């Protein structure tokens, strides 16, 4: 029983990682109707920027804020420079660009910052685990951060005109233009926000898995799965999806098929759920016009 609880909690901790990256995926999808495969690598790169600042003596939260701004700028610039000219290109070309970005960020991170493992500080402090040893302070803290991001993203889309305009721009660019939405600016904003959310995820994850250029390569698939499981249109669903994937994977690995197949098992379950409920657990059904 103790073992089971332990597995659940450690699953929640890894699930939190997936959830935070999944949020960035939801953001970019809501804003552009693309899934950016380079999202994880961009987050990793941002985390290196944060670490460089911290090592230069900048206090943690200042470094955190500066990294968000820089990441936002990187995201917006990529959209402006690379994606705007591709607006009318086939969707496959965009996916090709994402793959190119993924390779570039990964390789450049290794080139600039080296491949050796780097510890990343936690703002919540070290110290002994809490809750009878089930969760560390950082795990609690980062879950709180993820929930705060979730709340902001949800409120942004739900209550602000900007959020509405952004969704409209992604859903139907032509009509949005007619009603006066600056679609290009919305897309750039979406890329910037997604990059910033990714940066937050990166900074929370890095303390747990240690910072190195391949930090996110394993996470992205799980985050993607979590986002789709919860429903890619729903920030709340993506977060829950992320946690569910984390726990599912741990329990399956520990008690059902063994660790060798835990990834495969988790994915089979997710596909099965999606076949039954294609819009995800919490997503709205997307009706495509013919």
């Amino acid at each position: 029983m103790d073992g089971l609880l332990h597995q659940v909690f450690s699953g929640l901790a890894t699930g939190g990682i997936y959830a935070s990256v999944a949020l960035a995926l939801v953001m970019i999808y809501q804003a552009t109707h693309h899934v950016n495969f380079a999202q994880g690598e961009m987050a990793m790169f941002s985390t290196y920027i944060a670490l460089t600042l911290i090592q230069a003596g900048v206090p943690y939260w200042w470094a955190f804020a500066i990294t968000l701004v820089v990441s936002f700028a990187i995201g917006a610039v990529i959209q402006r420079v690379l994606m705007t000219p591709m607006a009318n290109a086939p969707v496959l070309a965009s996916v090709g660009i994402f793959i190119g970005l993924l390779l570039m960020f990964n390789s450049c991170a290794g080139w600039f910052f080296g491949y050796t493992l780097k510890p990343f500080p936690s703002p919540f402090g070290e110290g002994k685990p809490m809750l009878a040893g089930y969760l560390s302070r950082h795990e609690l803290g980062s879950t709180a951060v993820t929930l705060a991001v979730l709340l902001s993203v949800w409120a942004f889309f739900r209550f602000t005109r900007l959020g509405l305009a952004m969704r409209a721009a992604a859903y139907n660019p032509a009509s949005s233009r007619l009603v006066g939405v600056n679609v290009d600016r919305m897309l750039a904003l979406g890329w910037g926000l997604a990059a910033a959310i990714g940066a937050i995820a990166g900074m929370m994850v890095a303390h747990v898995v240690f910072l190195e250029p391949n930090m996110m390569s394993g996470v992205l698939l799980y985050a993607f799965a979590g986002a789709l499981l919860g429903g890619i249109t729903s920030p709340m669903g993506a977060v829950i999806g992320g946690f569910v994937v984390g726990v599912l994977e741990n329990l399956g690995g520990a008690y059902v098929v063994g660790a060798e197949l835990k990834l495969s098992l988790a994915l089979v379950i997710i596909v099965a759920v999606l076949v039954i409920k294609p819009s995800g657990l919490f997503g709205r059904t997307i009706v495509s016009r013919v």
Partner: protein
Amino acid sequence: MQRRTLLSTIGLSTLGAMAGLGRPGAADAATPGVSATEIKIGNTEAYSGPASAYGAIGHGLVAYFKMVNDQGGVGGRKINFITVDDGYSPPRTVEQTRRLVEQDGVAFILNALGTPNNTAIEKYMNAKKVPQLFVATGADKWGDYQHYHWTMGWQPSYRIEAAVYAKDILANKPGAKIGILYQNDDFGKDYIAGMQDGLGAKFKAMVVKTASYEVTDPTIDSQIVTLQGAGADTLLVAATPKFAAQAIRKVFDINWKPLFFMTNVSSSVGAVIKPAGFDKAVGVTTVGYAKDPTDAAWANDAGMQEWRGFMAKYMPNADLSDANYVYAYGVGVTTMQVLRQCGKDFSRANIMKQAANLHDLVVPTLLPGIKINTSPTNYHPIRQMQLQKWNGKTWERFGQIVGA
């Protein structure tokens, strides 16, 4: 119809032409890759892809041979070291190796990276009779001098290393309940095999649980919890640095205090112990064969000063905590010894003969007392290791130098 006739005519004449071309020329007299002024050495490395951290070895070797050339080379010849990227993908290793051997015409391949990658080219290299020297993998199979005369390892084999741990457990904790965390590939599985070798019939009784992970997994927390839950009081971790550091921290965090053995692959102070936390790693035991660049114990060591001098001059911007550069230096020293022993005869046969004829070679970056020995029936150059325990500040060596 006419076209068909034409085609078949072309086809036939082509076949005829190829019959002439297909025969190897009479150029075999001179050794490929060796001229009056230079010796060409080839190397495949993972500069891109999932194992690109090891690219540092390739950069280190390039710098090392630059130093050799600045010092006059060997036998009146400069070293032309050609290193190429294979992205850690075996098909590309095959392609790049063929390029090095057939197009660039290297004398031999040195320190190619990766077990699957070297397996992919082993047959080719031996059929072509091109030395495949000092492969950069610790798999046990790289000492098979009977079947693969042209292929030789360098570092101690993982399997022998695991057997050393097993013997230590049998001697000091015969009632141990062992849990093993391993990477689900050839590297991790060699440790399981080594434990079987070392524990013999007791393996089934003593090993209570094994748990594997994939390199794509973000964390190994779940596996550590599983191993603890199975009642293990002794833990062997056969994991690469990222997962090793996570394991050290997780074991500490859940307040588990097993007898903790860590693979030599992840014994770097800078890349594993420091990220995990110096105090959290107290008591971790590993075996060593090389000096660690970040271990304070070697701050004033003559051999490591030599290495630091080389790094300062030839790789001034490199990360000095990266043990791959120390590894590269060791491989470089060994290679130069082979080439010096060759005298004037740089034929592939003689290079292989001299590689299998190293006696008590002292490499400045290896632990004191560990020497390199090879013979026509011993293709494991480094067989010696020493157990060492982390005391919170440095690796403390204990016991005899062990060797298989």
